[in-house]
């Protein structure tokens, strides 16, 4: 069942007021009524910005935010309607665009390594020094990681997507994501000096092919 393209939500005089539709419904309706697409922006712009700003800093994030939605609008007819939330799709587009800002990302991570953790994380002085070192190593390791592992890791840890969400964002099977995340986490642990043997996702077979 679908409503006529001409159908308009009731009680929505101000077009900025979100209707009760799912993202996928709005994207579908935007085929005929492009202006509706602005609602996708209203719902997700802040999240996309925060993810981008965490990776490349606020200045480059402004560009990534703007470009993400222009690209998404152009690709709206190719959006897979199976996914109710458009957020993984948008974060996937943002991730590709972030690759154009690799320089900014590397600079931001170097600055992080130098500055250490945010004040609120630890108050004890010794712990603080440890944490400072640990964050520095973490930032350096992330910077040296292959882009595909870094993308999967940061979509998972910073954009709060689950495995399926990361898979949707990057357009690869869930098994591949599991493999990339395991590898990324192993590398992080090794760089922190922990024993590499212990996998955190115990009992989960790594089904992805090598090199995934």
């Amino acid at each position, binding site marked *: 069942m679908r409503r006529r393209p001409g159908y308009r939500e009731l*009680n929505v005089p101000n077009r900025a007021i979100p209707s009760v539709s799912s993202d996928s419904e709005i994207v579908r309706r935007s085929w005929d009524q492009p202006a509706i697409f602005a609602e996708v922006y209203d719902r997700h712009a802040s999240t996309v910005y925060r993810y981008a700003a*965490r990776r490349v800093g606020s200045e480059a994030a402004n560009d990534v935010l703007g470009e993400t939605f222009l690209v998404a609008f152009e690709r709206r007819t190719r959006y897979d309607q199976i996914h109710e939330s458009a957020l993984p799709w948008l974060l996937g587009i943002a991730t590709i665009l972030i690759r154009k800002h690799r320089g900014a990302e590397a600079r931001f991570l170097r600055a*992080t390594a130098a500055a250490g953790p945010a004040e609120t994380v630890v108050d004890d002085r010794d712990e603080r020094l440890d944490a400072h070192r640990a964050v520095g190593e*973490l930032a350096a390791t992330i910077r040296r990681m292959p882009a595909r592992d870094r993308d999967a890791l940061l979509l998972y840890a910073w954009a709060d997507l689950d495995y399926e969400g990361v898979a949707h964002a990057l357009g690869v099977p869930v098994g591949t994501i599991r493999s990339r995340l395991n590898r990324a986490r192993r590398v992080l642990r090794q760089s922190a000096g922990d024993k590499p043997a212990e996998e955190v996702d115990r009992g989960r077979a790594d089904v992805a092919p090598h090199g995934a």
Partner: protein
Amino acid sequence: MDELTLLRTVHDDIADPTPEVLDQGRRALVEHIGSQRSRARSHRGLKRTGLIGGGTIAAAAIVAALVVTNVVGLAGWRGGAEPAAAEALGDAAAAAIKTSDPAVGAGQYLKVSTQAVYSVEGDDGTGHGAAYLATQNGQMYVPADHNDEWVWVRDPSAVVQTFGAASERAAATAEQGASNAPEIVRAAKGAWYNGKPTEWDFASLPRDPQQLLNYIYRVTAGSGVSVDGEALVFIADTLRTGVVPADLRAALYRAAAGIPGVTITDRTATLDGHTGIAFGRDEGNGVRQEIIIDPSTGLLIGERQILLRNGVLPGVDAGESMGWTAVTTTVVNSAPTGGSLCGTGSRPVGGAGSGQCQG
């Protein structure tokens, strides 16, 4: 602290985007959408009609290309509604000004009752398209203080009209398993379904008809079939909220009188038992948007869309209405109890105001 927990603390102090950053991104998107639309439309239009000055095609391009203000815009210099329609709209505006708005006292609610019918397109089970009409009625209780809790009773949808056997089958299929209990949504500030507050920013809209119409052209640029058609749709959408103050209602009627192509389409149009004058505009796409006004009080009776060609909806003939809304407002002392922010069977997720419910 394991590596993931530590990683999650990194850059966690990143600031939210400022309103300026969000506005900038949104403006870029809306402009982009607008430019795409006007280009596509110009190409189509030029092929069909040749180059015509002053038509809606040129107007669409102008709206998208220029940053118009409320003072300098599309209104005024391209003519206006047909003289008889302009005169009747002027009379309705004069009557609207004289009709006082219902006063909502402290603790009271403005009850906006909406009888709405819309068309649903589906499949009759044998792969053939079919359409039928169904209701979407509701009563919204708007508190005197908009910061208080609003209540919205949404009646279950019911089939009101079918068009032949295929249409009946499609309607029967669709109604299987449909809920038959009303849904009650309650939300402070009218932030329905964990969304953003309902804000009717009527105070900031210009009361000068020409400035108001320019404003409407500006905010609707890029939507709809034509700039003039979409302006009339905006006016219908705004009026059908049922909460437009009398002075703005009058200004909206006068703005409608400034839209080229608006005519009186029916002097005795009846909607939900009330008769008034219907004003409409033929969009050339087989659908005419109309607003229906009671000429004696200047009150809006409702709005409707009339089909002008056979088959715009599968199996439905010209002359039928493909949807309508009738609105009445009253002041009441109490609102129904029960219900929740996300209505029946859902709960808010993703934080307050995320626009998301799940269940």
